[in-house]
């Protein structure tokens, strides 16, 4: 009996290809919107989660400037190497402290040049930033201390300057400094904020200060806290020591800022998830509208096909057979629309993930849910018109023009 209903429903849909496609459109758009958004959102969340992990254990960042509001900082004197040494000495539960100075420059190798930032730091920079070596070696403590002309570069810089060549044991020029490339870092991809973490050149801090910047400034201090330590306490200790170092009176506000990176990443991840949820809800509404579209078309079809229903009933179709036929028509429409929507969504998500540089993470759950939901839409919104058709009086229906 079900096979019969399917046969009749398919014959009917085939007769009205255009109308069938238009009816499915609502479901197609709804399903593909939900799946695309959830897939991309899932990819973004996964990316943020991975970045939290890649930040390394409990990273705190101390930057110069007074916090004026979101994203705004007032100018203030820079830190120096003594500050970072004092922090490491005076604050408990720290694994490492890396003073960081950054300056924009152009890196030159043979005929190639690449505008980027040069980072000057100590050997502690690598473990604190969770940067790992891919080829060659990192610079060591003695090289850092004496300010050797060596550098470690990221994958992006290597590609831009050296193409396929190995960058190791060559010399690149950074302004007046000619330095030897001793190591190539492992790729870290995009950061939470969207910047390329592989576009990096690291030289010893002393080298940076003497040969590139020409001053003793440190812009940023990265602090790695011991696992399990109370981050809040460490944060207030850092502030206390830093206030003394910067000679701030008790009534003065901090002219530096301590940021817990993990906190920010967690917040970003929550925001991403909330956005995904909200956008999916919009998609779900369009799915509902698609369902109502199906009901609308099916109701019109029942009126339009009253005579046909009369013929079927006169020929000997049972009430539930007519009901089943219309219901199957609606379910075939909606679930077929769902399948098209799924295919569309996955290809859109794949294309967009490349464009937005978000990893494509296949979410089987949402695909199954979206398909089941679209089929359910067919049953729910198809039932009322189908019942209306099944209950028609054959004599009246046959007289209908």
């Amino acid at each position, binding site marked *: *009996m079900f096979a*019969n209903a399917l*046969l*009749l429903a398919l*014959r009917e849909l085939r*007769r009205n290809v255009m109308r069938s496609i238009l009816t499915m459109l609502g479901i197609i758009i709804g399903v593909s919107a939900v799946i695309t958004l959830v897939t991309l959102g899932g990819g973004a969340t996964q990316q943020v989660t991975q970045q939290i992990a890649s930040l390394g254990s409990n990273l705190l960042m101390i930057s110069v400037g007074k916090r004026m509001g979101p994203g705004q900082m007032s100018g203030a004197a820079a830190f120096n190497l003594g500050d970072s040494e004092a922090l490491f000495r005076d604050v408990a539960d720290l694994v490492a402290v890396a003073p960081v100075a950054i300056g924009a420059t152009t890196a030159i190798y043979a005929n190639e040049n690449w505008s980027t930032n040069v980072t000057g730091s100590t050997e502690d920079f690598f473990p604190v930033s969770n940067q790992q070596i891919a080829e060659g070696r990192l610079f060591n403590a003695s090289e850092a201390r004496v300010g050797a002309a060596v550098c470690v570069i990221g994958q992006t810089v290597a590609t831009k300057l050296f193409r396929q060549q190995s960058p190791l044991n060559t010399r690149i020029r950074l302004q007046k400094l000619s330095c030897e490339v001793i190591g190539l870092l492992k790729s870290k991809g995009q950061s939470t904020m969207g910047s390329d973490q592989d576009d990096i050149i690291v030289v010893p801090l002393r080298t940076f200060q003497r040969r590139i910047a020409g001053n003793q400034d440190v812009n940023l201090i990265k602090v790695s806290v011991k696992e399990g330590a109370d981050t809040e306490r460490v944060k207030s200790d850092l502030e206390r020591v830093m206030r003394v170092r910067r000679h701030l009176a008790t009534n003065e506000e901090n002219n530096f800022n301590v940021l817990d990176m993990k906190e920010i990443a967690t917040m970003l991840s929550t925001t991403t998830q909330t956005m995904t949820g909200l956008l999916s809800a919009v998609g779900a509404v369009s799915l509902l509208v698609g369902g109502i579209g199906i009901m609308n078309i099916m109701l019109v079809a029942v009126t339009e096909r009253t*005579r*046909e229903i*009369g*013929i*079927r*009933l*006169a*020929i*000997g*179709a*049972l*009430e*539930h*057979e007519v009901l089943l036929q219309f219901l199957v028509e609606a379910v075939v429409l909606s679930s077929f629309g769902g399948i098209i929507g799924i295919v569309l969504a996955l290809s859109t998500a794949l294309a967009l993930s490349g464009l937005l540089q978000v990893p494509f993470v296949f979410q089987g759950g949402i695909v199954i849910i979206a398909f089941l939901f679209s089929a359910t839409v067919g049953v729910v919104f198809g039932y009322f018109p189908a019942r209306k058709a099944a209950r028609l009086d*054959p*004599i009246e229906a*046959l007289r209908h023009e």
Partner: protein
Amino acid sequence: MSDINGALPTPLLELRNVTKIYGAGDAQMQALAGINLSIYPGEFVAVMGPSGSGKSTCMNILGCLDTPTTGHYLFQGIDVGSLSRNQRALLRRNYLGFVFQGFNLLNRTSALENVELPLIYRGTTTAVRHQLARQALQAVGLSDRENHTPGELSGGQQQRVAIARAIVTGPSLLLADEPTGNLDSARSVEIMELLTSFNRDKGITVVMVTHEPEMAAYAKRIVHFKDGLIDTDHQQGGH
């Protein structure tokens, strides 16, 4: 009547004092005022009468589409009035064939699929269904029009497809409601010859409503309706 057909076996269908009243209160309208009619297997009956004489109501009751207000309609001894809507549908499916004035084929559906329709509801297997439908189309002389939709067929051809659909299940009773009403005289003759042949060769009982005496002349028996009652009922030589 019973004395005329006294020698025949039990009637295929029998109306006993059937009345049909539509509406209620002041708007009440009596379509049938107490009909007694027996039709025996193999008969070819023409039902005639002016509009509003009750013949359409009578056809609806005979076709198990409607039930009497009072009285009984017995189809092969079964009281149709006591059956549920679905049981009447099963009766139509298994024993009845319908031919309408307006053909009533499914639009944008090939002749073959139209003829297959009653077999689908019977649950006939695909192979048997195709075979029976082709045979029925052949019987009405439309083998070469299997894949044509009603829009691509003339009126006479459409009515022949409708007849094929009605006889494809091998019904006991064929009900034709003004089957030639929309056709010219040459096409009408073709249709009447088809109905006559199915009645004669396959023994299908035919009850046909018509306004035209020339078409009624093909029947073996003519029943005249007037004001909700049977006015005259007589046998004739037929063709």
